[in-house]
């Protein structure tokens, strides 16, 4: 398993170094710095082998997080762990940067002690960790308290402690979808998929059992098969076919597999309940039609039409890349504001209120410096869009979320529930 864990700043100075296994020496710290951080060429893989030692790294802003091993360990596990560690650190002291890491190095060592034992990931749940590792140092605890902690850290429901009480039982569901699109210049959809996440904020007392219902075809159909009498209530249309979904640790996967029921005891506070992916019947909120003409060697003409295919008003940003040797740009647009941003090599077109079912056009003339350097050819990066719309492009719907708490006297009806749908742009690109 993981033999050592190092954190470096952008200069390659070590901020944290924790060795778990004897086969990793101090020289490993330097090997990574020399061969990866200070490497002359950009390192082209997140896994590198240097002198029969494997280095896994992820980078956040200027911070390198690196796990080292000499064994044939589970690579997916290492990266998952590194991400988890970033998440844990983030929830303890906010942004991951040199300043914060230096300020909290004692805390980080303490966390590392708990997160990994002999290189094996242990409990990495932030909520649980916070019960006994705090920034103020560990308070002296009574015997009952510590037993409670250890039971929770190792227990079956490691993500929730007992005895939580709220005056108002409330829960929030956010369905956040990022819509990804790759379209050819001719308007053919090359690939489109929605990756959605269901984020839940739960403020519920006790140990509530939750049941979550969505309009997925498989789930709905199997439900219906299970109790055909109640099938009358379900509407026929409006089912979507989810390609794949993944659930938070708390969801009982075997139950999902056999009964297609999503049931769980939620952690307290905010967490990601589920992730899903959908590729069929996606309603694309926008369509971009590009037209690029190169007029001679010093001039280019760009025309971009944006169409909206839904009924709402929203904010939109379109980025139209320009060649590196652009000297000047004249833009005309009917709506919104468009500006050439030399630093980004792009025309940024912002429309504050894009109405539904509308079509707006932008045209631009781009003056180019005479390109002497042939090697620096412009590769026509795709036109990208940023937007946020108040609906789920996949058609995903929450059908119900029922809460059962047998021990405390509140019922499903007493829980206040909020549901919100957000469709964001992922990589929403049109080639030009």
């Amino acid at each position, binding site marked *: 398993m993981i033999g050592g864990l190092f954190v470096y700043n952008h200069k390659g100075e070590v*901020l944290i170094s924790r060795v778990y296994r004897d086969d990793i020496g101090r020289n490993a710290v330097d090997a990574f710095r020399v061969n990866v951080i200070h490497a002359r060429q950009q390192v082209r893989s997140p896994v590198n082998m240097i002198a*029969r030692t494997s280095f896994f790294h992820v980078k956040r802003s200027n911070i390198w997080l690196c796990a080292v091993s000499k064994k044939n360990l589970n690579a997916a596990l290492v990266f998952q762990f590194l991400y988890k560690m970033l998440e844990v650190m983030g929830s303890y002291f906010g942004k991951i940067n040199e300043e914060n890491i230096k300020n909290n190095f004692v805390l980080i060592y303490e966390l590392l002690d708990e997160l990994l034992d002999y290189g094996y990931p242990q409990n990495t749940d932030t909520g649980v960790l916070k019960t006994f590792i705090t920034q103020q140092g560990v308070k002296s605890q009574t015997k009952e308290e510590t037993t409670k902690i250890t039971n929770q850290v190792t*227990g079956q429901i490691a993500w929730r402690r007992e005895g939580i009480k709220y005056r108002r039982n409330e829960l929030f569901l956010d369905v956040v979808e990022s819509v990804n699109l790759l379209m050819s210049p001719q308007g053919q959809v090359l690939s489109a998929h929605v990756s959605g996440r269901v984020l839940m904020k739960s403020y519920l007392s006790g140990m509530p059992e939750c049941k979550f219902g969505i309009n997925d075809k498989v789930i709905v159909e199997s439900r219906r098969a299970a109790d055909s009498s109640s099938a009358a209530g379900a509407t026929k249309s409006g089912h979507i076919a989810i390609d794949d979904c993944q659930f938070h640790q708390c969801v009982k*996967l075997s139950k999902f597999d056999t009964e297609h029921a999503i049931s769980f005891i939620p952690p307290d506070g905010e967490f990601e309940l589920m992730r899903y992916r959908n590729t069929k019947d996606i309603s694309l909120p926008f369509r971009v039609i590009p037209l690029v003409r190169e007029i001679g060697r010093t001039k280019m003409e760009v025309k971009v039409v944006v169409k909206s295919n839904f009924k709402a008003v929203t904010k939109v940003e379109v980025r139209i890349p320009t060649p590196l040797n652009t000297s000047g740009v004249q833009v005309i647009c009917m709506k919104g504001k468009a500006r050439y941003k030399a630093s980004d090599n792009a025309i940024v077109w912002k429309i504050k209120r894009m109405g539904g079912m509308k079509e707006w056009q932008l045209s631009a003339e781009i003056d180019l410096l005479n390109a002497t350097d042939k090697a620096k050819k412009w590769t026509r990066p795709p036109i990208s869009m940023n937007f946020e719309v108040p609906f789920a492009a996949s058609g995903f719907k929450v059908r119900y979320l029922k809460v059962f708490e047998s021990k405390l006297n509140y019922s499903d009806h007493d829980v206040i529930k909020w549901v919100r749908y957000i469709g964001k742009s992922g990589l929403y690109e049109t080639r030009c």
Partner: protein
Amino acid sequence: MTDSKYFTTTRKGEIFELKAELNSDRKDKRKEAVKKVIASMTVGKDVSTLFPDVVNCMQADNLELKKLVYLYLMNYAKTQPDKAIMAVNTFVRDCEDPNPLIRALAVRTIGCIRVDEITAYLCDPLRKCLKDEDPYVRKTAAVCVAKLHDIDPLLVEEQGFLDMLKDLLADSNPMVVANAVAAMTEIGESAQTEAAARMLTWSGHLVNKLLTALNECTEWGQVFILDAVANYTPSEENEAQSMIERVCPRLAHANAAVVLSAVKVIMKLLELLTPGSDFVQSTVKKLSAPLVTLLSSEHEIQYVALRNINLIVQKRPEILKHELKVFFVKYNDPIYVKLEKLDILIRLTSAANIANVLAELKEYATEVDVDFVRKAVRAIGRCAIKVESAAERCVSTLLDLIQTKVNYVVQEAIVVIKDIFRKYPNKYESVIGTLCENLDTLDEPEARASMIWIIGEYAERIDNADELLESFLDGFADEQTSVQLQLLTAVVKLFLKRPTDTQELVQRVLSLATQEADNPDLRDRGYIYWRLLSTDPAAAKQVVLAEKPLISEETDLLEPSLLGELVCHIGSLASVYHRPPSAFVDGRVAAQRKGLPSRAPTLAEATGAADAGAEVVPTDNAQNAKPAVSVIPTQDSLIGDLLDIDMSGGGGGSGITQQSAAPAVPSQSNAMDLLGDGLDSLLGLGGPAPQQPPQQQPAVGGGSGVDALADIFGGLSATPSAQAGFTPQLESWLPAQRGKGMQIDGRFLRRGAQLQMELQVRNNAMQQLSGFAIQFNKNSFGLAPAQPLSLNPLAPMQTATTLLPLHTKGQVQKMEPLLNLQVAVKNNIDVFYFSCLVPIHVLFTEEGGMDKRVFLSTWKDIPADSESQTSLGSYSHSPDSVSNLLQSCNVFTIARRSVDGIEMLYQSMKLCNGILVLAELKISGGAFTLSLKSRHAEVYSGVQESYLKILKSSN
């Protein structure tokens, strides 16, 4: 107040100050100091001198401070073992602390302190902690067993910790179970004793329990369990099926490691199920979506997933065949993701989706990253080779790319066009013109070699091929070997196609290659061409312009056993590197190779296989029946080389597998035939005699019915009479007058691998002879009787024949002449001495055959002046019969060639004392000339004599 200030103290005398602070009375000051020490330690400063002072702070009841001190201890205990001992008591005490967090901390830390003295103190606390009431302590203790095992495996086995660990598998707490599983897996991989290894193997019952615990574990625990379960191979199909059913739900887990480990278990178990069954199909279907989902996770995880998908696609292409689009490259993907996606894209390409793929590849070929663009261009070529219907579109796409004049794109395109020419000969040569326009811009060896190959191959259709090649020739010395080799071959091809006006050119290139080049390969190939062209241009044409075997469409596929092994390592580093763990992990663990389990065949299948086997048999025989003697003019190694390089054009790494070509297309062309025969003859000649197929045993020599019969059975048993090739006449060794009435005639024989002395004893005396015994003097080859002489008493005028087995392990003394053997025979009358000459061929061993290239290199190694040539006279033997005859005396014909009616046989023999003798037997119109080469010239006369005897014997 923040902690970052601790990083900034770099003054001199700092250690001294720290020391003072560590010993301060004030708690907070001590804590500050320890923090400073840890900060220094992190940055790599040596603070080991503070060891005793830091250890002093250990007694503190502050948990935070304790943790820091422990951290320090772990780092420096090894350098200061004697001082580390001081801390032991605290550890032992902490292991009994009422606070479970402290107990766990102590047991966690103590396992990390790798000091022998401390290890001894560890056992008792560890045993207690393994049975602690608190699960947090138990889960920590479980891992500690693994730590201890790493330090002292025998101690762990002796102290019974393995049993305790195994008990923890049944613990009520899921995390304890998970850690115990992890520890057991790790220990199991490096277990020292048989017993321990056996104890740590997973039983079906245990696996069943673990799968039940799966649902309650943390995500990491699930990974540990799945990885452990992957090591277990169920014995029955039903069991495998139920395991798959229980693992499948994990595919919906949010953690990619859990998903990949589940995929691993399922992929392995699928091997045990009936292929094509409904269950297998539905399981395969379930795998696809989770794998695709992994591609929307973080880039690093995508990378790991893509490397694994690459394996999975090779193992079970059906899983992802409809998911082509998810592997389309996104503009912002990091380069490592792009390259991997491209790889998989090509693997999934088929006639159905080629249009989409090609459009994408064209897009990629205009990107910025040079490596990626090159790979995209190469991919277009691979599409052309894979999907014939799309070849034309691919070629035109490549031509478009060549028009861009981007240097590396052009070069890459030329390399792949060469491969397309190989696959579809004479189809697209219209593009040669365009290629030739870009001749000047090619500066990479591979592209130059490819272009030269194209010119050579299509020399008859390129009007100025000679000029083009000549232009390359000017800088011959500066080219890389691969280009030089290609240039040499291309010019020879050109000469063979247009001999009239290119004589000068070919002479120039041959002299460049043979006289000025340093590279032996190049020189050798030059000489071969030279000799070929000068002796037999027709043969040269057959060799050089031979039809080339087809190239395979699937390239860079992993070899199946490696693929199987890697599938067993899905999710792990091995699957990322695409190398078996033994390639990058040290130690014993690596030596254990995993492999996919294979399904026990059902009855029906077994019979089917038997039937198939029966069908195969005749083919085998047919192959064996091929003529044994090679007709290759030169050694096959070089020819192999030639073809090899010719195939690839660029001399390796062209992206088209060369190695698979030869075996895949046997007897496709002349050249391949030659090779095939060469191989056969090699196999036939090289093996020991009894293994030879019966057809190869010639019934020359005795020719009696018994011999013929023996011949038929010769292949089955090593009957002595099977060796019938050549039997020398009896010689008179001891005349009766000298032996007081005892006359001895004799000869030496070799039957099977047994050296024998045949003695014919005749009693010419008037009285009975008895009490025979025999003894040899020391001799050159250490010959000695292997058993006492068994000869019954001999009545007057009676003759008895006996065979005396000999061995060659006796005492050695060089005799003059070399083959002289002094023998003493004793009987009831006296002791008689005589000497005889051992014919050297009985000393030739069955191991005398050798590989052609070994022969060639040995021949070359022996200096030319030690070569000895003699004329053997004229005989009526055909070369075949000679070689058969000699073969029976363990003179192995390695190769044979005929030039202008002169037959040359290349032969080798090995003496029982290891001396190698190489021979070239020239048969020119019945006249035999023998050239011998050996490091020991003394043996020449004997060998020549033996040759003479053998040749004469049956003439």
